[in-house]
């Protein structure tokens, strides 16, 4: 193809197909280096980088906003890397940005998969950049083994929040009845933890019966189908629906609506997306938990930035500051309006200097 283009330049006639192919090539060249970056004018300050799965879900889109807000607050260059669910691309993009900045960078990464964390940390340590990981990393990879470059790992335990939502649901049901539960992908750690929390709450409430637990793979479409089948199978026995995330919870609400029962059977989700908060305001959803991705996107960078600029020395911090569970916000009809006004209607206000403010204990691996 290149030969054809060259021969075209040398005077041979260019066919229409060749022009299209060339245009296609140029198009692809624009797409592949998906590093959205601005010229590095503030070269003395570290470039701050968020590496996330995609910008197509509300969760990571909000994450990205938090990152941009932090970067603006310190006047650093901000770069967003998107893995699109591809581990190789995620690692390669991070290596590219390390090379571009010469290691003068702070990276806040939600690794696409747990094993990805190791090559990312290795590359960053070699280049001298500082890294904060969130959600996924191998259990035997610890920040204190990579002082000072691997600053911290942040995660959220699904157990207490899965349990808190089940308790919210059971309270709405008046302490008795039958519930059905929609789970996430069976092998996902958050799905396993949230289910564990649900089971703990059920064990403590013997009057509430778990009619069925089905895996809907985090998907609204699948959740709608499963809920429809349940409405046939159990009918009025269902007095509550627990879902492991908001997408599935909202789909369950729609299935109830088609049955004329929306708002009558309480439903809970987890994640705290905007539509879920709105559904709580309308009384169709009983509760959700917000992980505050705005905080994750900004604070992950703030912690790394503070370490990189010498505000604190990671090596001297206790282990519960290096591998910690963050704090989720439980939203029910009591605080939904306030939460909506402060976090969704307005840009959330964060104190980026309060870096350990949401530490709720060291991560436990069993």
């Amino acid at each position: 193809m290149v030969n054809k283009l060259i021969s075209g330049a040398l005077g041979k006639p260019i066919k229409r197909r060749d022009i299209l192919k060339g245009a296609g090539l140029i198009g692809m060249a624009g797409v592949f280096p998906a590093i959205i970056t601005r010229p590095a004018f503030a070269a003395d300050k570290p470039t701050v980088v968020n590496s996330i799965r995609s910008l197509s879900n509300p969760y990571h889109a909000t994450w990205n906003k938090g990152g941009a807000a932090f970067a603006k607050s310190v006047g650093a260059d901000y770069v967003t890397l998107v893995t699109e669910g591809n581990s190789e691309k995620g690692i390669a993009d991070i290596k590219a940005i390390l090379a571009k900045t010469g290691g003068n960078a702070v990276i806040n990464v939600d690794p696409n998969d747990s094993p990805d964390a190791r090559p990312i940390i290795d590359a960053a340590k070699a280049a001298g950049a500082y890294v904060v990981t969130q959600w996924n990393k191998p259990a035997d990879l610890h920040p204190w083994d990579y002082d000072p470059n691997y600053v911290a790992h942040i995660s959220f335990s699904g157990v207490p929040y899965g349990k808190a939502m089940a308790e919210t649901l059971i309270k709405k049901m008046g302490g008795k009845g039958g519930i059905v539960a929609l789970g996430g992908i069976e092998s996902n750690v958050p799905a396993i933890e949230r289910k564990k929390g649900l089971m703990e709450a059920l064990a403590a409430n013997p009057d509430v019966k778990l009619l069925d637990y089905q895996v809907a793979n985090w998907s609204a479409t699948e959740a709608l189908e499963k809920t429809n089948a349940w409405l046939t199978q159990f009918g009025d026995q269902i007095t509550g629906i627990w879902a492991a995330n908001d997408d599935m919870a909202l789909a369950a609400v729609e299935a109830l609506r088609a049955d004329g029962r929306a708002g009558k059977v309480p439903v809970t989700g987890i994640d705290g997306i905007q539509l879920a908060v709105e559904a709580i305001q309308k009384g169709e959803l009983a509760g959700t938990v917000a992980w505050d991705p705005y905080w994750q996107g900004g604070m992950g960078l703030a912690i790394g930035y503070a370490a990189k600029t010498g505000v604190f020395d990671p090596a001297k911090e206790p282990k519960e500051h290096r591998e910690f569970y963050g704090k989720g916000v439980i939203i029910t009809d009591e605080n939904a309006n306030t939460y909506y006004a402060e976090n969704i209607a307005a840009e959330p206000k964060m104190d980026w200097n309060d870096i350990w403010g949401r530490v709720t204990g060291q991560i436990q691996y069993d």
Partner: protein
Amino acid sequence: MTLDASISPSQSAKPTARRRWRIAAWAPLIVLVLLCGLITLINPNFMTFGNMVRISQAAMIPLVLGLGATFIILMGSIDLSVEGGLTLSAVILSMLVLNGANSNAFGMFGILIVLLVGAGVGFANGVIHVRLKIPSFMVTLGMWFVGVGAANALLGGMAIRINDPMIRSLAIERFLGFPLGVWLALFCLLIALIIQNYTRLGRYIYALGGGEDLAALSGIPVGRVRILAFTLAGVFYAVGGVLAAAQLGLGNAQIGTGRLFTTVTAVVVGGTALSGGQGSVLQTLVGVLIVVVLSNGMVLMGVPPSVQIGVQGLMIIAAVALSIDRKRMRIVK
């Protein structure tokens, strides 16, 4: 079912092959009946009117998507842009009708625009496929990502709630006990049947699938038929997008996830050959019902979640194995 009599319109076209074809063409329907019987034995709730309504609700979107895909598969091509067309349509619809994000309220006009968008996506598929001679597999794979990507770009990762009562009525309002969306899907089936059996385009599509060289030699405008078929399929995907948005009450970029697999499975399980030329939209209806009844039934029968996906896979192999006509096949790739 009253549809039985016309289950395989290809029969009339091949009088000599009639006897051999009979069992193969009826196999999917037999499978469906057996499946319904088995589930009813285990859980009698299956055969209630309420559950029939729920099955029809679950079947309406795969049916509309499957109708579009049937025309493409009948030509011996494949269309992977199902999710792209559906997602883009659903997202654009959610932005045009009364919604929670902007002040648009185009109502019916919004639906027309969405159908045009679907037609445009399909038309682009067809033109690129025919004029640049790129295999349909690659063109539509690309268009899948273009569609989802465009939907992403429009929404920036957010979801838009649909408040338009007309759109929501497709999922909520009922006529004779069935949601309006189900009637819309049946109306699409009727249109597809008419196109398949009584229009030149429909007959040409069969001719192309049976042998494109012969069709071209006998003066059929092959390129134009292909472009039209892809455009038609795009319109069906757009209808699927409208229904999906109505059902979930929102438009987001993940609304199409997983639908391609269901669509192609339903078409193939219904007995439409991937090699083209054999099958019909009514067989797709049977295929859709098999897939939907199976997933509904497994929940009713209490099959553990981890086993369900495996059972679905076995079901596909079994249904295709029953409906395939081995005598006419020399090579299997």
